[in-house]
């Protein structure tokens, strides 16, 4: 019992335990929210809000609406939960960028990832996992496209980053 508790707090959990826990929480999110867990549609609202602040977008999303959006707290929760998980095991530290090439790859990768997720209506969570979990054909097609994209990305990674 003590050993189980230690692994639960300190980690790492076996991958299949993670999958079961995430699956259970994913279903709970659907029950609470009446719609599935997603990440990027909330990021999009914040991006539009930020763009308006910088004078790049005409429409205005009031910040009070964003602060009362469920998606905001799910996303914030993921960040805080990971922080807590690292702290609980005494494994938190600030991990600075060690090589400049990873800064470029992060910025370019983020740009591609954000654009792709929004035109396809979802990221790995909202589009792929919960698209498939919703028994939508789009989810399966998206998964196939993501796999092919990953293959191209892997070639780029081997060429420029290794």
């Amino acid at each position, binding site marked *: 019992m003590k050993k189980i508790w230690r692994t639960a707090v300190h980690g790492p959990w076996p991958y299949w335990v993670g999958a079961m826990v995430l699956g259970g929480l994913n279903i709970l999110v659907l029950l609470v929210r009446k719609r599935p867990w997603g990440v990027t549609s909330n990021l999009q609202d914040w991006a539009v809000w930020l763009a308006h602040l910088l004078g790049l977008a005409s429409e205005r999303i009031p910040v009070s609406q964003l602060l009362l959006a469920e998606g905001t707290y799910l996303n914030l929760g993921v960040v805080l939960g990971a922080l807590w998980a*690292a702290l609980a095991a*005494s*494994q*938190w*530290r600030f991990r600075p960028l*060690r090589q400049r090439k*990873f800064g470029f790859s992060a910025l370019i990768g983020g740009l591609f990832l954000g654009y792709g997720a929004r035109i396809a209506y979802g990221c790995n969570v909202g589009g792929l996992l919960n698209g498939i979990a919703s028994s939508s054909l789009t989810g399966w097609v998206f998964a196939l496209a993501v796999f092919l994209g990953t293959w191209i990305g892997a070639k780029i*990674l081997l060429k420029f980053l290794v």
Partner: protein
Amino acid sequence: MEYYLDIWGEMCPIPIIKSQRKLKVMAIGDSLVLETEHSCTARGLVVWAQKEGYPISESEVAAGIWRLTIAKTHD
């Protein structure tokens, strides 16, 4: 012989690719030491070494820094 492979600050899966290449040129009986601050990288290396049948030991040398030692026991 003990070899040290510099994977500091590198993201997955570059450390595994580098280890695969390094282990190929090492002799049987040598060991490979790696240090990383990426939790996923440490985990991925352990799972990979276990699958390949190389004994691997993992220790946390500081908060959020893992030191891994892989022994090359076979080709």
